[in-house]
């Protein structure tokens, strides 16, 4: 009978993984930083095209509300372009992340020794599971549609109370209640996707499980093992805590004591790295519990059997 791991076991997996495979974490983070940096340069170029000769933009960026609104009004198309660049970066990252998550999970699952072996494992697993992850993303679309529906209905139900709210609890209370089902469902779906990826990675060579069947089996697994949800929720909680902490510290200090954008970029990458570490630690825990799952049907063998027959 498989060992039943507790929350503590999952949490303890995080520092072990971060300590042993720090390079993997940093490599993934470097890719993320490069993309974020490219996004920044693209947006900066677009904004500079509109505003480099207009001093009012400097005032806007330095916190003058009137100047900011005036500039947005003046160059709406450029701001739409900025949103397009950001969306493009997001999309690109989503596509890249299938490879990066696959590689990371492969490393954490197979525990290779040495840099070369780790890099080979990373690349091989990332490439091997890429299409399976892509199919998994398609499988999650109906769930995401359900999440959208839950958010829409929840907010529609909360809206009358929110529009008539006189205090912040009256405003955020209904908002929290209205969005709670949507967030809960989203959390379940994201956790299911995480564990389905783990399963696809762990069993890729031995069982080559199909994406659809893995997704459906993982829904049952996650529901049966609430610790998976609690563990992932803790990760998101710390993620939010780091973000909120930074926002709190940065509030009222737009440049956080640094004059230039580069200094700002560096400071924020530190925050982003902390959050990446949390996500990495969560993946490590998920690998641990993923190992304890019942084995999936052996698709390769059944194909071989039918071929023999």
């Amino acid at each position, binding site marked *: 009978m498989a060992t039943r791991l507790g929350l503590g076991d999952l949490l303890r997996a995080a520092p072990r993984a971060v300590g042993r495979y720090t390079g993997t974490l940093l490599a993934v983070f470097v890719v993320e930083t490069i993309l974020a940096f490219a996004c920044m340069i693209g947006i900066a170029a677009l904004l500079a095209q509109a505003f480099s000769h207009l001093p009012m933009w400097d005032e806007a960026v330095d916190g003058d509300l009137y100047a900011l609104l005036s500039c947005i009004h003046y160059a709406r198309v450029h701001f739409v372009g900025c949103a397009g660049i950001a969306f493009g970066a997001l999309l690109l990252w989503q596509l890249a992340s299938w490879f990066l998550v696959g590689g990371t999970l492969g490393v954490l699952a197979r525990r290779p020794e040495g840099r070369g072996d780790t890099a080979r494992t990373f690349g091989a697993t990332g490439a091997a599971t890429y299409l399976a992850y892509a199919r998994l993303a398609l499988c999650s679309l109906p769930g995401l549609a359900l999440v959208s529906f839950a958010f829409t209905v929840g907010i529609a139900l909360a809206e009358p109370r929110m529009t008539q709210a006189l205090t912040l609890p009256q405003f955020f209370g209904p908002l929290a209640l209205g969005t709670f089902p949507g967030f809960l469902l989203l959390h379940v779906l994201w956790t299911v996707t995480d564990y389905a990826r783990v399963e696809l990675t762990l069993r890729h060579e031995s069982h080559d499980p199909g994406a659809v069947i893995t997704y459906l089996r993982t829904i049952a697994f996650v529901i049966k093992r609430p610790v998976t949800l609690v563990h992932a929720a803790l990760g998101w909680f710390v993620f939010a805590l780091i973000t909120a902490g930074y926002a709190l510290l940065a509030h009222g200090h737009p440049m956080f004591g640094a004059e230039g954008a580069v200094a700002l970029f560096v400071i924020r990458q530190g925050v982003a790295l902390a959050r990446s570490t949390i*996500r990495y630690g969560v993946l490590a825990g998920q690998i641990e519990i993923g190992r304890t799952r019942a084995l999936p049907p052996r698709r390769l063998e059944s194909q071989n059997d039918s071929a023999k027959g």
Partner: protein
Amino acid sequence: MYEEAVRRFVVALFLLLAACSHDHGPPRVQHLPKVDGSPALRGGGAPRSNRIANYKIEARLDSQRHQISGSETLTWTNTGASAVDKLPFHLYLNAFKNESSIFMRSSKGAVRGARATESGWGWIQVDSLQIAGTELAPKLVFPNAPDETVAEVTLPTPVQPGEKIEVAIKFSEQLPEVFARTGYKGEFHMVGQWFPKIGVRTGPPGAEQWECQPLHVNTEFFADFGTYDVTLNVPSTEVVAATGVLIAANETAGGMRTLTYHAEDVHDFAWMADPYMRLITGQAKVEDGVVEVRVYARPEQYDFAVRHRDAAIGAIEKFSSYFMPYPWATMTVIDPPVDAAMGAGGMEYPTLVTTGPDHALMRPGIRIPEYITVHEVGHNWFQGMLASNEAQEAWLDEGVNEWADAHVMSDLYGPHTSLVDYMGWQGDVTALRGLDTEDAATLPSPIATAAYAFVDNDAYGEQTYGATMNALTTLEHTVGTTKFLAAMKAYARAFAWKHPTGRDFYATLEQQLGTDLGWFFEPVFQKVGGMHLAIRNASCIPGHKPRGVFGEGSGKKTLGEVEEPDTGAFVCEVVVQNTGVIHVPVDIELRFADGTAQRLLWDDKGQGNWERFVVERSSKLVEVRLDPDRKILIEPPVTHAMRLIGDGAASLRAAARISWWTQSLMQLVGP
């Protein structure tokens, strides 16, 4: 344990929802209010106005059916020089009678975000109209049919100049579910534009015409001054607030009570009835006494009521100081219940206004609630006392009032924080309201357009409010604030208790400022085209003495770079242009690399569309700023300042922020 957690969650959910609701329980009998000891006009004294239209009204509210039945006696004086053979009456509530009314057609059933409901129609019906005992109701006609917001009756005998006529009217009405100023919402009743009201005779002596416009979504009101004695018969459970002062209060049979209000030198009467309202009071100190300020709000809106009260007190004191003292004894501010705020909030009547918007996100420091109160209270000057025609020249009350509001808000809350001072963000009324206004140059209707004749409702709003405020602020900056404020004060005092027109406004300002302002008023208020100010070109070249071939014959010599080297100075050329129709003096600031600056003035008064400036300086020109002090609010200022060499640092800083949030999203969806 799991069940316990679920139980606790359900209880918490229930408590949270309960906390969000505003259940007041069944209405209770209210204390009979004390009558006001003060006269309607502070200190009493002689009439301020000519009191042409005087009303005695008795009305009974059926708060369950939201119906009113009433009778009124109108005493009207023909102060013109020509005889009057017909009387027109506003029947405003018929705006809500059906979709054939001009109001419903022009509003498409929605005003300022509030929408008419299928079950909430409202109407007014004249049951009887008698003059000298003769019943004339059957002879009422609707000249704008199918619109029924104006009814006319031909008189059996014309009213000669100087004569008075007494008209006895009985009416019954159904209040609409409120979405445009008047009506009910639940137990709340805001009763405005509710009684048959006579039009106004305007025009030169001997050629007067009735001005009695049907109600359009953009038109508000226009009426003669007079006295109002209004007796309201309402359930004892109602808290009532009304224009004027309460002079009698008595309990009557059937759980009802009568409240009699008296108002002088006003041109309208409005009232509110609601069983759950609470009153908070304060006093505004003006130069010749105090004004009792009353704010009515439901208990859950107490915090906002305090903000509205303080804003109302400040507004009365500042408007009194800027223009003329508030003349009446009381100022009542109604803070409508949150579910009625969109429909009933933000409306002005003499001595009584409605305000809003009370909302959780209107944190202290976000001063939109205060601004609405200041604006509506301000209307007691611009329209309450200076009773301009809101249908024909809406800018004269709304826009002028907006301009004055900006001053008052600035005085009350600080020049840079008059509208927003929250979490480090700051903004003043003039700037932020200006942002809300589309570039006037793009609008096909000028400011001085009749409210019902604008190309669309957005153009009406932008020109009448923001564009007028921007224009007056620009003029103020051009002539100087002190002089302009003095001129506006003179205008207010000259036309209080009258019906000023735009022409009166222009003439008074020109007279007070001692200058012809046609170059400003004509293009700004009467024409389309706006202002298109731009820096066409700015450049610098190294300065040197003239080079080339000089002299003749043997004296001919060629001077080149060697003979006449650069002096080290720079010759800088700046070309500015204005392709719009509005031309106001423009300050130009040239900034140089050594940190020095030079100011120039382009004041062509419309004589030219461009100007070239050439200066020689020891340092290179790096930046040109048109209107560096931001005096001109007529057009957006973003392109008024230009660097000669681009600088992408700010863009990089902005991009760093945007990419940070993008990266945060990336971390949500990726590893």
